[in-house]
């Protein structure tokens, strides 16, 4: 799945792009309006910058945390974001205000769940039994909070496998569609778009299951079904190909918002060696420490 997976769209000269660039292009569409734009995966983070650079200058980026990078320009993605973002940052804030913004719906987030199930429930806490997990992940964090405050949640699953897309999540950090949601009268935190390395999906609002919205270039429905731990909803007719990133998007990603190539951390190369390589390159690229102070 590494390297080139398709051909860039739009008017400009065609060119190849990676699946991470495809994902960034898709996710950039969810960030609009006077909101804080947050991406919990590297690609989603870069997507917030792409949105700000090309489509929605009004969004607020929070590169590097709630303080030094708050409301900064569409600066290049780094491993140490504050150092790059702070010089253009307009305001310092804190975590209490961030949750007030979430409560006010002034927030758009793409999460990176470890498990998503057919109804759209998601999990980043544990694999196996919570009392004695097979794998202790990171804890529920803010997903239960966002779920009762935001209209809709977006998901990015880096690697589409039967262990990531499961029949039922081991621990519910966010609740999907279905009878339980209806009984609770929960109308917020609806599972929205799911983007993986294979395609773009959404969930049936009655909990019937996962629907393919589009397949990335070169991916077949059968391939996606084989990589999914439950039966996908049958497509009605021919499935569209995910619109490829435009030339302008690719140029922006590569030259402006991710010249370092941090997006590779969401790809198959991810690991200590790549992180070390990026950290080394970052030092050269941005001349840390930094700008304002």
């Amino acid at each position, binding site marked *: 799945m590494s390297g080139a997976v398709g051909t860039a769209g739009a008017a400009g000269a065609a060119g190849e792009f990676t699946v991470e660039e495809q994902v960034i292009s898709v996710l950039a569409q969810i960030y609009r309006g006077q909101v804080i734009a947050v991406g919990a995966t590297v690609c989603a983070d870069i997507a917030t910058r792409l949105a700000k650079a090309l489509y929605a200058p009004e969004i607020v980026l929070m590169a590097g945390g709630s303080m030094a990078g708050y409301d900064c320009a569409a600066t290049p993605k780094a491993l140490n974001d504050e150092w790059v973002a702070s010089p253009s940052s307009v305001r310092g804030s804190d975590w209490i205000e961030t949750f007030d913004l979430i409560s006010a719906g002034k927030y758009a987030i793409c999460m990176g769940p470890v498990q998503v199930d057919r109804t759209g429930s998601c999990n980043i806490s544990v694999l196996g039994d919570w009392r004695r997990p097979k794998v*202790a992940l990171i804890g529920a964090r803010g997903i239960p909070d966002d779920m009762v405050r935001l209209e809709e949640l977006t998901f990015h699953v880096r690697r589409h496998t039967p262990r990531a897309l499961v029949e039922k999540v081991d621990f519910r950090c966010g609740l999907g569609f279905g009878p339980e949601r209806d009984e609770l009268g929960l109308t917020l935190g609806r599972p929205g778009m799911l983007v993986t390395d294979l395609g773009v999906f959404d969930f049936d609002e009655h909990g019937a299951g996962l629907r393919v919205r589009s397949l990335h270039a070169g991916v077949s429905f059968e391939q996606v079904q084989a990589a999914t731990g439950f039966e996908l909803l049958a497509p009605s007719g021919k499935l569209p190909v995910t619109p490829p990133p435009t030339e302008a998007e690719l140029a922006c990603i590569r030259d402006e918002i991710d010249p370092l190539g941090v997006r590779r951390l969401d790809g198959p190369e991810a690991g200590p060696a790549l992180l070390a390589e990026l950290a080394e390159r970052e030092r050269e690229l941005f001349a840390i420490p930094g700008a304002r102070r």
Partner: protein
Amino acid sequence: MSKVLSLGEMVTAVPPGALVSFGGGGMARKPMAAVAALAMSHTPVRLSVFLGGPDVDLMLGAGEVQSLDFAYVGFDLLGLSPNFRRARESGGLPVVEWTEAMYIAGVEAATHHVPFMPTRSGLGVDVLEVPGHPFRRFPCPLTGETLTAVPAIRPDFLFIHATEADRAGNVRITGDGFLDPYLARASGTVFVTADRLVDQLPPDLSEHETTISRLWVTGVAELPRGAAFTAVFPQWPLDYAAAGEYAAHCGDAGWLRDYAAGLATAEPAR
């Protein structure tokens, strides 16, 4: 009015069974030297940390944690926390898993000196379905709608690492403050290590640049690079090489002991 203490004086003040919290979040501004000194003092404590990283990992690896409250434990881009994994996966560690907003609400309850805070979080998710959690669904006394009551979080001891502090205990944090300013209000005793001590804050800056008032601070120590490899904006970007080495080896008890001993006793590098 000097509140300058040594790291040893701070750590010695913590009795067994105390509820201890650390500032910072994930791989940022963790008071690692203080954590190492505490771990080396062999004082079993209860931990409550908003966003844990190598601080929680080191304490768990040292075997000095009686229980753990958290909303997150992880190494951010460097992956999961090995000693958190082992402690959780062995099933022996009593834990309370908070959500971020619930943890914040618990700290706010403590800062306001009320026993609980109401929040909308917890509806429809499994954090309220696990054994031993301290939360309760209740009807709003004014509107009747169902909310979640979270208890106040009142650490006995809080350790923070900061950019700088003055000898009177005023503290300046230039990067993300996480919950540190609020935890300082919620905690009984607040110890701050700082990359540098100055005579008085704010230096040539406006009063908006001082993050925490001396009224909340018990003691300060000058400890350049007291956050070890974690990031302190703007003086120390995250040292990915050292962090990677920690992540690779911290599961080895011998390695971790040597690492902590070195961190706890290192002379301030001037």
